[in-house]
């Protein structure tokens, strides 16, 4: 931002000659679009480079990062960065890059600490990107570095020391040397048939239901797979107990309160990311079984948990699901919507 401002000043002082000669090439100008102001650029220019270019002034401590991490990140990434389900593992794995199943983490694989600040700033938390302050971003970056034993527990990360942090795998990357394989266009006797080994696939891991009837295979979508797994679980339960399990709320039977109806929008653009599919241990919308124990308690308790956050047996509900921009009322309405859709 400062550079472009400086250039503009230079241009106005030195004149048009510099303006033209500073370009790599001189093409015809259409003069479409408007000149971006430094304020407009500052709002969107969020990227950070390994040399620290782009870092905002400020800092954050490991200590503050721990509190925030447990609220916002642990649900998916695990309390120690070990990763829940198939969510990314953040810590550990050092020395595994040559193993048959390497664990690529911030500490074992990432070449630069700046990438961590940049990524948290642009994309995290998953449910509420661009909701963190610069200070919170420093705190979380510091804490993830701490989880990787790259900084001490009393460390304070700042715009001045971030670029100095040396990552263990900083020299682990090299420029693409391809084309690296040289095959030739052989037409006859290209291989020895007596030495050929033919191996087939592992059965049962590919969604093939759309062309192999009755195949015992996964579904071809996440939603389909969840339904499939639930059906199987219910069938097992029914076989054991002889009881039929009611699975989905019948939509026509649901008569919602005004509060619940008002909560639908909030659900769609905030809660659905987890409660739409039941990820990270969250009860899925319409899943009566999953909601039953929650519905039994006082609704006010449920609302309070949703607003203030809650650590349960199946997972962690971050305060407002990480969407701190939501009002308490919006969260309450969304809770009503979910509860009334799931009983």
């Amino acid at each position, binding site marked *: 931002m400062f550079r472009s401002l400086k250039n503009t000043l230079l241009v106005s002082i030195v004149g048009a000659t510099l303006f033209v000669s500073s370009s790599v090439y001189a093409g015809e100008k*259409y003069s*479409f679009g408007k000149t971006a102001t430094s304020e407009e650029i500052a709002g969107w220019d969020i990227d950070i480079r390994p040399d620290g270019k782009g870092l905002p002034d400020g800092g954050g401590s490991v200590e503050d990062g721990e509190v925030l991490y447990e609220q916002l990140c642990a649900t998916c990434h695990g309390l120690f960065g070990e990763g829940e389900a198939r969510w990314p593992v953040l810590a550990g794995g050092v020395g595994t890059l040559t193993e048959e199943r390497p664990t*690529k983490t911030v500490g074992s694989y990432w070449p630069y600490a700046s990438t961590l600040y940049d990524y948290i700033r642009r994309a995290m938390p998953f449910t509420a990107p661009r909701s963190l302050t610069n200070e919170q971003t420093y705190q979380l970056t510091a804490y993830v570095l701490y989880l990787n034993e790259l900084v001490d527990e009393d460390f304070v990360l700042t715009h001045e020391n971030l670029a100095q942090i040396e990552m263990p795998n900083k020299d682990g990357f090299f*420029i693409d040397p391809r084309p690296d394989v040289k095959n030739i266009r052989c037409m006859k006797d290209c291989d020895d048939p007596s030495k050929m080994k033919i*191996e087939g*696939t592992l059965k049962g891991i590919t969604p093939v239901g*759309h062309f192999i009837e009755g195949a015992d295979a*996964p579904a071809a979508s996440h939603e389909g797979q969840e339904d499939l797994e639930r059906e199987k679980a219910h069938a097992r339960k029914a076989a054991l107990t002889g009881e039929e399990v009611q699975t989905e709320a019948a939509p026509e039977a649901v008569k919602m309160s005004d509060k619940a109806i008002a909560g639908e929008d909030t659900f769609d653009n905030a809660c659905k990311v987890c409660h739409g*599919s039941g990820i990270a241990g969250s009860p899925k919308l319409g899943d009566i079984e999953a909601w039953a124990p929650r519905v039994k308690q006082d609704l006010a308790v449920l609302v309070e948990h949703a607003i203030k956050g809650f650590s349960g047996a199946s997972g962690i509900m971050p305060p407002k699901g990480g969407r701190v921009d939501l009002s308490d009322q919006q969260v309450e309405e969304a809770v009503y919507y979910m509860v009334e859709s799931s009983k």
Partner: protein
Amino acid sequence: MSKIIKRPGTRELMAQLAKESDGLSINERRDFLRKGMMALGGGAATMVAGTTMAQGTNLPPMEPSWGKMLGHGVVEFPYGQPSKYESHVVRRTVPWLTAESISSISMSPLQDLKGIITPNGLVFERYHAGVPQINPEEHRLMVHGLVDRPIIFTMDDLMRFPSVSQIKFIECPANGGMEWKGAQMEALQFTHGMLSCCEWTGVPLRTLLEEVGVQTEGKWILAEGADGAHMSRSIPLEKALDDTLVVYAQNGEMLRPEQGYPLRLINPGWEGNTSIKWLRRLEVGDKPWYHREETSKYTDLMEDGRARKFTFVQETNSVITSPCPENPIKNSGVIEIEGVAWSGRGKIKQVDVSFDGGISWTPAKLKGLVLSKALTRFSLVTKWDGQPWLLQARAIDETGYVQPTLKQLREIRGGNSIYHKNSIHTWKVAANGEVTNVQIS
């Protein structure tokens, strides 16, 4: 109403309706006829449902039911959809690959596609924060950094530039990545479906860079999306000035939301991840940024624990799409072996087919358009009489690069690189025509 349905022929019914509506005002008459037609359609449909139960009634010498009734009129479906009998032609995913569907990938049904163009609704999807719903009037592209004049473009501004339309493939570098250590997927859609090809319309990035005036220190460009992931990649200026496109349309219509509506980058021949969707920002800099998608991801880990970075090019590749596991051979006799080939370095020059697992090869024909960095269809007409085949295709591009064997790739790269597996693929054809995925080592 009941009187109408009892009547046998459509033409008579139309005449009857017209007669009965005589004397009504124009509006009343139109309304009356419309309702009558609807009843007619409903009646006919009931009849069809009843008669198709019997076998063969739509076959010669019988007149098919659809030839004895009326279909729907114009604009019944303002945006047309495929026949209901094609409902199996859809994108699919392998659910265990990713934690959920918002940051995930789906595959195009290559087994059902013809020619080289992927229909817009079937182009494979890759999202990191789901599909944003962007209002084009509020969408902006900011171009700034080491430039003489940083500019913010509206969609209208961008569409004022002289446009170009080019047919280019787009492929995820992880296409086939599940197969590095062994054959895994039992279907073509999942072995090769992270691949699509469209006609893209937009402005060469070069034009926009000339507009802002790149300064001499400018060597790299950061492209960034407007989605929740704010997906970002560093792109060398050399590529940006060569053939990178900033596009707003695909296959004749505005981009689909899944494909970056209203604006995306297309880096022809390069890994799909660099073709940033929902493009909102381009920053010119003197060095690459080393963001998550060019360090943690999209780097290729070698056996010695070191990794290749900036592995941009999608090298020459090919696959037989018919037969394949989804399209087994149903009849002995003449058969057309068909497939697609593509190269991130230019045009496909030749495709050869092997029936014996790569011991001997026969040249196939290229058919239709042969374009640089686009899918190219190949074909070989032959005969099959129940003999087992180990069917392979091998593509050669205009640079002379010959698609490698998996053995050759593994010898150099090991089994952990995930990305850029472009090796010769093998389908095993059994005596009953069934096709399965195998690997030869």
